[in-house]
């Protein structure tokens, strides 16, 4: 067994949280509340040293950039939300955050998530290298890779058709929307499988910590 008190604390907290698998209990609730408290303080310290100090405190009080009094005032106004009588003042900083974020995202999303995705989708239908590999080594897998690009184009177009709700999903349009659902289901399944694997690997990491670092059995 480990003699490091830090490892013992980590093992105790790990066991407390895993005890939830049996049912909700005081050990789990203790760890849950401790986690919230520690996390809140962690992020407060993190943001102070990484954002507030280099972007506000040092430039304003050391370098004398007095214009920063505006975000400081807006930040303090944000805290007025805690006091109902003057809570309306928090709308000003909120409006700034919402406006900046909306303007920034409008451009970013339009560029990277709409236009760039359309450009990346509309490539040559025939991937010469993939077809050459198929003819040299005919197999089911090589066939799948050869038809990959048409599959993507069809999937994107039918997927978008499914999301178009201004026209009733009937006839040819409905058929295409149905194909779109199939592609979306494959995508959801793949994402789900990927997420499960990520969670399982985290669980393996915790079990390995208990058996290796704490109990030193493996």
């Amino acid at each position, binding site marked *: 067994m480990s003699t490091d008190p830090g490892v013992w604390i980590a093992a105790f907290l790990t066991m407390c949280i895993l005890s939830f698998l049996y049912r909700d209990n005081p050990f789990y*609730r203790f760890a849950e509340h401790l986690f919230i*408290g520690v996390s*809140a303080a962690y992020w407060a310290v993190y943001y102070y040293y990484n954002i507030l100090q280099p972007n506000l405190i040092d430039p304003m009080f050391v370098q004398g950039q007095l214009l920063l009094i505006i975000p400081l005032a807006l930040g303090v106004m944000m805290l007025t939300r805690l006091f109902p009588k003057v809570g309306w003042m928090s709308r000003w900083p909120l409006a700034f955050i919402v406006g900046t974020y909306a*303007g920034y995202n409008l451009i970013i999303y339009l560029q990277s998530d709409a236009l760039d995705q359309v450009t990346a989708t509309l490539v040559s239908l025939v991937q010469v290298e993939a077809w050459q590999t198929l003819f040299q080594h005919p197999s089911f*897998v090589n066939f799948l890779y050869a038809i990959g690009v048409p599959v993507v184009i069809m*999937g994107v177009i039918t997927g978008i058709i499914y999301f178009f709700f201004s026209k009733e999903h009937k006839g040819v349009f409905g058929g295409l929307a149905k194909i779109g659902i199939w592609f979306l289901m494959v995508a959801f399944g*793949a994402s789900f499988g990927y997420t499960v694997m990520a*969670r399982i690997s985290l669980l393996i990491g915790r079990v390995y910590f208990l058996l290796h670092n704490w109990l030193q059995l493996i």
Partner: protein
Amino acid sequence: MKKEVPLIITFVAGMIMIVQYFVPHWPFSNLQQMFNNWFLIITVFALILGILNLLKNHIEKVSRRRKGWLYSIVLMTGFMIMGVAGFVWGPAEGRPFDWIYWHAHVPMSSTMFALLAFFVASASYRAFRARTAEATLLLVSAILVMMSRVPLGSYMWSQLPLIGDWIMSYPNMAGQRAIMIGIALGVVSTSLRIILGIERTYLSGK
């Protein structure tokens, strides 16, 4: 004053962020950098607001001896210890803050996420009861991706990892792209509505 000023602030901030993309030089490039900096500072205050609200609720719970008040003391103790460690000794490596981070924060956060593996397993049992063609597709795709990522999959069929990669690279990407394009168009229209003051729910619906 309570309604008009926030709408003007939203419009000006939003328009400057849009215009700087098309006019990437003075004065808009400077304004964009300045607004980005201000944005970061104000979001930290939003975080402080959240923390103050959390503490206020738990102090209230303790003072009124409401059910579970002892856990509130645990929460505040954890907050105080981590906060003092960070603000007094700093966050550098080897300091108390770093020690608590590695021996309390990291184990608890990774175990919390690991715990989800079990709930995902029970959710998958419900989701994977293949009652329709769509559910069957979801089931087959998830199983193929999972099996392609473990040694057992390639032991059963050497081509399985390639099939898993193909699903991720082609049909999955097609579905994800359709969703991304849909979301992007939604973001563009919602952002425009917000900047132009048509969408005002963020001002408490008034």
